[in-house]
């Protein structure tokens, strides 16, 4: 007999795969990738454009779909919680089901167009870069699925949770970088480089950007934080630090959400 986490994971996945919005998400990502690939002429340039897409769209969609799923699935959680199953396994099974199905939709959406591009001999695909892009997008999806569940489990009102989610997304995507830039300009007389590295670790979207840019040897695209990561940590250390920070960004909200779930009244 398999463990209850696996069973809950399986049902969650099964239910999600049937819902139309998951496949719509894969198609949306796919269409955007196709657009960028076939309109431009350089696949590496297209990979960078897809990166911008990942930074903008993937967090928002993961948050919104994650929350929608959480609220649509409360009935299922309630049914399962009255069965002889530990609460923790209900939570972790759902988180895995959500995170992995969103990740799967993203991977399919990006990979299929690149594979087709290469298979039909339409150009040289820079596979290491695409691989990096897939990895980073998957990490961002996991980070924001886990944030979505944290917001969902902590809020019984879906409108409020959705509002907070959109605010979080807006701040991390637009406001944070402006503030960081202002800080860099204001403090340019001081040795603040290490601070800037630390501060960009606090934003998973910055981390994702840094991670891809560290592996693209186009210095002009690196941006200030990317260059700093490379200068201070080197590509190897910089990558390790960024990946570790992203793992923490997934694990901490998930752990917090699990704690709230364990003490919640249904």
């Amino acid at each position: 007999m398999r463990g209850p986490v696996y069973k809950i994971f399986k049902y969650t996945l099964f239910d999600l795969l049937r819902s139309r919005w998951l496949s719509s998400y894969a198609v949306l990502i796919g269409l955007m990738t196709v657009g960028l690939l076939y309109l431009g002429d350089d696949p590496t340039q297209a990979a960078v454009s897809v990166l911008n897409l990942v930074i903008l769209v993937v967090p928002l969609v993961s948050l919104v779909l994650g929350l929608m799923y959480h609220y649509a699935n409360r009935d299922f959680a309630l049914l399962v919680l009255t069965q002889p199953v530990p609460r923790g396994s209900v939570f972790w099974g759902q988180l895995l089901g959500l995170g992995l199905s969103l990740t799967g939709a993203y991977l399919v959406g990006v990979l299929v167009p690149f594979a087709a591009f290469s298979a039909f001999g339409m150009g040289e695909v820079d596979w290491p870069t695409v691989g990096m892009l897939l990895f980073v997008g998957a990490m961002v999806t996991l980070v924001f699925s886990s944030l979505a569940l944290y917001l969902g489990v902590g809020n019984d009102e879906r409108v409020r949770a959705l509002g907070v989610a959109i605010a979080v997304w807006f701040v991390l995507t637009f406001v944070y970088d402006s503030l960081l830039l202002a800080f860099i300009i204001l403090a340019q007389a001081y040795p603040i480089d290490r601070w800037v590295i630390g501060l960009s670790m606090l934003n998973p979207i910055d981390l994702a950007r840094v991670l891809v840019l560290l592996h693209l040897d186009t210095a002009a695209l690196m941006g200030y934080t990317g260059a700093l990561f490379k200068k201070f940590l080197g590509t190897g250390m910089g990558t390790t630090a960024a990946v570790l920070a992203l793992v923490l960004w997934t694990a901490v909200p998930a752990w917090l959400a699990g704690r709230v779930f364990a003490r919640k009244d249904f």
Partner: protein
Amino acid sequence: MVRVEELTKRYGALEALKGVTAEFPPGKVTAVVGPNASGKSTLMKSILGLVVPSGGEVYVLGEPARKNPRVREHIGYMPQDPRFPENTTVREVVRWIEELRGAPKLDLDGLLEYFGLSPHLDQPTRVLSGGTRQKLSAVLAFLFDPEVLILDEPTAGLDPLASSRFKDRVAAERDRGKTVILTSHVMSELEELAERLVFLLEGEVVFAGDLEELREKTGEARLERAVARLMEAS
């Protein structure tokens, strides 16, 4: 047999249960009665582990139930308004629950037939009426032949045929020695099924005992009047 001891539950400033001690013996139907917001649902949900009590303990068949999900193997539950995953058919819901709880102890087809659910097997649960969802909930509650049945307004939404079949079934389970905990707003239904009554008011047990005892205490033969007396007196 279910026992709750000194059970408390606080929601912020609100004390939903103020040290409730009560016993639900086997072979009897115990009705939990009280006005709205008296703590009935909180009590039932605490026994199930859906609500995390602030203090006290719940014993199911003698085992402490808090932090022990395995005791729910002995519990069948019908919520007030049962809901199921929308994209899933009746057949799949039953199969999932079977996977979680192990092989059913009773004949599934017989139960489906008894509650008139067989024609709905391949329908997704989102198209089911409230009454049909209630029937599915009943099938799931009885299927594993649990020692304890917790039934929260179980007949609301059932048609007269399903409702009377359901009540026959509950009476039969009681006669087989099961512990039945029941709430209902329909006093005649409680009168028909219950031998015992726990009356809650503002999170406290005002009366717990046999219906006979209640009738003697209040001098009222009808349950509705007897309960009304209890409410007036407190």
